[in-house]
């Protein structure tokens, strides 16, 4: 940026995750399409603070009535599982956790 505002004494640095100095932090945007549904991840954007992030999320992700509510979360607050651990985390085969594992006589009907 070509304009520099000198820092105020004792100022706390704005939290910026990846990116260069002066860049707005990144926020993850979650949109609830309608009452009764979950907020679902819609995308992300840069904004200086939560309120601006929410306003901008409205403009960027809900221009066509895609939502009735938005959440914005600092991307730096998200802790993600490691893709290399995927098998250990998610791939365990436990067929007995599914109803189709159990064979019942036809007379029982729908259960």
């Amino acid at each position, binding site marked *: *940026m*070509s*304009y*520099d*505002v000198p820092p*105020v004494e*004792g*100022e*706390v*640095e*704005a939290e910026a*995750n*990846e*990116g*260069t100095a*002066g*860049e*707005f932090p*990144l926020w*993850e945007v979650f949109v609830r399409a309608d009452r009764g549904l*979950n*907020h679902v*991840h819609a*995308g*992300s*954007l*840069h904004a*200086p*603070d*939560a*309120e*601006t992030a*929410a306003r901008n999320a409205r*403009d*960027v992700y809900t*221009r*066509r009535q895609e939502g009735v*509510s938005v*959440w*914005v979360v*600092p*991307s*730096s*607050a*998200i*802790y*993600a599982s*490691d*893709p290399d651990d995927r098998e250990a985390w998610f791939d365990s085969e436990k067929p007995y956790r599914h109803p189709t594992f159990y064979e019942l006589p036809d007379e029982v009907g729908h259960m």
Partner: protein
Amino acid sequence: MSETTTNNQAVDESTDPDLQAEFDARLAADQKVEPRDWMPEKYRKTMIRQIAQHAHSEIIGQQPEGNWITRAPTLKRKAILMAKVQDEAGHGLYLYSAAETLGVSRDELMDMLHTGRQKYSSIFNYPTLSWADMGAVGWLVDGAAITNQVMLTRTSYGPYARAMIRICKEESFHQRQGYEIMLTLCNGTEAQKAMAQDALDRWWWPSLAMFGPPDAESTHTAQSVAWKIKRETNDELRQKFVDMTVPQAEILGLTIPDPDLEWDAEAGHYRFGEIDWDDFWQVVKGNGPCNRERIAHKTKAWDDGAWVRQAAVQHTRRASQASPSENLVLSPSDAGAA
């Protein structure tokens, strides 16, 4: 679309054969590559370049149409044009977010655009001279973009594919409103119809060139197809666009400015004349009618807005000093109840 770029981004220069094999298997199985997966550096760089150029195109693409907002013929057309230009800004933002998942920062991308180190689609270096150009741009330029972008909804990089799905949903409005402008002009006075024909005459060839050089000369196409970044070649997409568009011109009663254009019944395709690639390369190299103007305008807007961005950062710093936790949630009652 940024998704989990947060902890340990998988930037890996090595070419571990196991990782390469896993990557190849993923592509072969038509699975998406996601931000934290290992990927070859060349794939990452190709992806950054393509997504960034796409994002820059959306952003610069606001200018030729923004040019007509204050001169739209009716309030309805003005409202529509503003909505369309706002969509282009939104599309640029989705794409910048997707590019950032590959480890490049927004400021870097802006800087590369402003300094000409990354390009945008050459189509936006042509001027919009009359109101009919708003029709021709929507119909032809957005039409060509849709042809390309529908293919890209199946691209191998997950965040890019998701951005494309969102964009394609919105893009259909762009093309239809453009075609409707053309239709209205063509059903109007002689002078209005002549204006529509003039716009078609100027935008037809640049729209065909949008798909890029012929396959025989396209250095990127083969690798991009192998990596499933592109699913169809430049020439295939161009042919698809011509086949769709010629009948639409007939409905308008307009003449496509190509004496060699003819229907090949056997092949089931329209055959068309030679594109002027010298003109295309001149524009790519920076010598189009509007290259300098577009970048000068974009850079000025960025510089003029710098004090606003600085003020916003300062405001956040001071607010978070006053009450460090309050800045994180919208309101306590809104959050939490997932």
